[in-house]
């Protein structure tokens, strides 16, 4: 069996890849995608922990899976809303590159 820690490391790796993506990419769409990677990393972590957590606490604890379900839901909503905003942005400014989106600064 693969010990929990490797799943956690996998999750951490995916998380930092997403993290890097958010910080390094130009397109808003790609940034949203990177955030999705991060959320998936969260889910891996949660589910791995939930699966390895039998007997802890007062009841069989699979809260991690529940939380993961919520996260997937929220992530979907988030993507939808973010895309709408990006679309509006594109319509107004004809770009979705975040380094051109700096009307406001300082």
């Amino acid at each position, binding site marked *: 069996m693969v010990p929990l820690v490797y799943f956690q490391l996998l999750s951490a790796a*995916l998380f930092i890849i997403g993290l890097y993506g958010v910080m390094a990419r130009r397109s808003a769409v790609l940034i949203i995608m990177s955030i999705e990677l991060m959320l998936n990393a969260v889910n891996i972590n949660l589910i791995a922990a939930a699966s390895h957590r039998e007997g802890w606490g007062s009841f069989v604890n699979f809260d991690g899976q529940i939380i993961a379900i919520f996260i997937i839901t929220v992530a979907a909503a988030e993507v939808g809303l973010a895309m709408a905003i990006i679309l509006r942005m594109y319509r107004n400014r004809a770009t979705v590159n975040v380094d051109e989106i700096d009307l406001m600064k300082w």
Partner: protein
Amino acid sequence: MSWFLFIILAVFTLGGGLGVVITRNVVHAALFLLVSLVAVAGVYLILFAEFLALVQVLIYGGAIIIVLLFAIMLTRTAEYPYISDNRQWPLAAIAAAGVGVVLGAAFWINGVSQSTPNSPTFSELSNSLFTRWAIPFEVASLVLLVALIGAIIIARAGEDSR
């Protein structure tokens, strides 16, 4: 066996992820994302979280990727296929590496514990979801509603009065 699966899935997960953040083509990025997300679903499977795997494939693979592809298509610009990273990417890499070190160290020091993964049944899961977690569940539905209304208001074409 599970080790083998794990490594394969991990390679796909991370590879897809890396593809998303490295590729210069947005559409490719979306496809890489798909690869990664599906691989994640596989990871769920080896953790015996079948329901989550299902949800993952349906929502991510089905819905989110589609939305993303739509967005990409709708916001197409001339440079889109060649979109590159912004200027601070080296810094970003360092920062990400830093976070990775912290997280990795935290997990690694936590120690390697041997235990067999197990998972609740569908009915246990749903029971919990609709009793104990009913309130977050309802709130989540409101979140979806808000997102929906918001997306409609914001994205609807022809909003150019005022």
